[in-house]
């Protein structure tokens, strides 16, 4: 049933115009030009998508805030933990071993013992407080001066305070040292103040794990939030996508603005999270400096630092890009010119 029409126009010799993008043979010069055009387009799209978000601050701020708060939670937790950890490091001396000496040990003997102990590799420092010094100290601190004066003999023993060597508190080595020191003939009783340090460390460990898994879950949440936002954006630009595909836009070209939009949302969220962190640190700075005053230590809060801030922003930007990518890939397939 097929017929080939016979009426034909005479052929013209004029060759159709071939241009970049229209043909199979592309000269290197044109390739270079197109490569430049490609990068120019990247810049243009990056700027356009950002301007578009800024142009409708109400709706974009909502998304950015949600992402920012979600990211701020684990970040604030981790920063708090690392601050506590740093405080704890300052208190490693709390793993000190107190040796209460027998009554009959003279101050000279005690000093000798202190010198000998200080020679050991596993001991960083030994501080001797004689019985009378201890009494003076107690008198000053307690305010029971008169009561103490009425005592006939000093009830307090001399004390050697031993600081184990090694920065971090290692429960086992401290324990062995403790056992050894408590066997010394001059020592009446030894006390190891270690348990709360261990507990602190265990708690920090749990805290870190909680913040990390929280961070993981909230990152998934961020992916979903951005994915949903991008989905709506795609729906709103359906006409444009159809036209772009009709005039030969590649999938990459169609995806690009949405990926950038996702990236901007993520980055905006990361910066918001950082601002929230700075704000909470500002709130905490006062109480912390008071606390550190009480502990006679010079402690001030440490923030994220430059490297980690950069890391946070890059990660959040990547999360945004990723969230967009997951949705765009599926969504754009369903939009075809008909």
């Amino acid at each position, binding site marked *: *049933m*097929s*017929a*080939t*029409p*016979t*009426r*034909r*126009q005479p*052929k*013209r010799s*004029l*060759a*159709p*115009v*071939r*241009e*970049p*993008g*229209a*043909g199979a043979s592309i000269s290197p010069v044109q390739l270079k*030009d*197109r*490569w*430049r*055009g*490609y990068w*120019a*387009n990247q810049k*243009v799209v990056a700027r356009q998508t950002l301007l578009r978000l800024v142009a409708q601050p109400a709706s974009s701020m909502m998304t950015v805030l949600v992402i920012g708060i979600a990211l701020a939670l684990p970040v604030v937790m981790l920063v708090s933990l690392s601050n506590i950890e740093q405080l704890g490091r300052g208190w490693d001396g709390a793993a000190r071993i107190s040796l209460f000496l027998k009554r009959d040990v003279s101050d000279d003997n005690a000093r000798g013992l202190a010198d000998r102990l200080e020679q050991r590799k596993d001991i960083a420092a030994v501080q001797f407080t004689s019985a009378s010094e201890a009494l003076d100290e107690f008198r000053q601190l307690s305010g029971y001066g008169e009561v103490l004066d009425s005592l006939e003999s000093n009830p307090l023993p001399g004390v050697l305070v031993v600081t184990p060597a090694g920065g971090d508190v290692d429960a086992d080595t401290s324990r062995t040292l403790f056992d050894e020191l408590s066997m010394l003939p001059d020592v009446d009783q030894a006390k190891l103040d270690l348990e709360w340090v261990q507990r602190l460390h265990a708690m920090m460990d749990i805290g870190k794990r909680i913040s990390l898994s929280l961070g993981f879950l909230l990152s998934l949440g961020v992916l979903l939030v951005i994915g949903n936002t991008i989905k709506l954006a795609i729906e709103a630009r359906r*006409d*444009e996508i*159809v*036209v*772009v*595909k*009709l*005039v*030969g*836009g*590649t*999938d990459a*070209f169609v995806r690009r603005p949405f990926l950038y939009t996702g990236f901007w949302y993520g980055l905006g969220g990361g910066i918001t999270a950082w601002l929230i962190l700075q704000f909470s640190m500002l709130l905490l700075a006062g109480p912390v400096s008071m606390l550190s005053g009480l502990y006679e230590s010079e402690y001030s809060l440490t923030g994220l630092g430059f490297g980690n801030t950069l890391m946070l922003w890059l990660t959040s930007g990547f999360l945004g890009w990723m969230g967009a990518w997951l949705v765009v890939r599926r969504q754009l397939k369903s939009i*075809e*010119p*008909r």
Partner: protein
Amino acid sequence: MIQFDDVSKRYEGGHTALNHLSFQIERNEMVFLTGHSGAGKSTLLKLIMMMERPTSGQVFVDGKNLNRLPARKIPEHRRGVGVVFQNHQLLFDRSVFDNVALPLIIAGFQPRDVGRRVRAALDKVGLLDKEKKNPITLSGGEQQRVGIARAVVNKPALLLADEPTGNLDPELSAEIMHLFEQFNQVGVTILIASHDLSLIARLPHRLISLKAGQLLRPEVA
């Protein structure tokens, strides 16, 4: 330039839009595609644009067998074909200039070349003074000419038009057709689907007439 080789297209749902269709269009020809509504004109153009794939048979464009073209090559193929639609498919969120520039930006032209070419295309369709306007503020005829400028801005060797005068009065329609003839004169192969027989009959171009997805003899049309 275009060759259909025993092409059939059956849509999901069982409707056969094209039925064992064979024909050929030479380079630099200008051809009208006619037939009643539902005859399969749009389907034919969609096959050339690779918006649809044939159920059987082969379509060649510029010597390329479209059946052999993988999906990732479709954008490149479309960049070589200009299309004009009845509803012109313009974007109303941007200026006339930006509408016409779209194919160039997609093809990766540099901004200075984009400006030059867009203005040349707008000049050809007589809308140079409207480049900053939003197309929604233009008349139907002007919108259609913006659509034509966008279709030719990339200087395609092949230009397709689906009912380009569908919504226009006879005078404007004749103007639009004259525009197509001008592009044909500089070497662009042109295929225009239209059921406006009174307009087509006055123009000296070959007709391909469809009826229920099959060719009618040209004399019958």
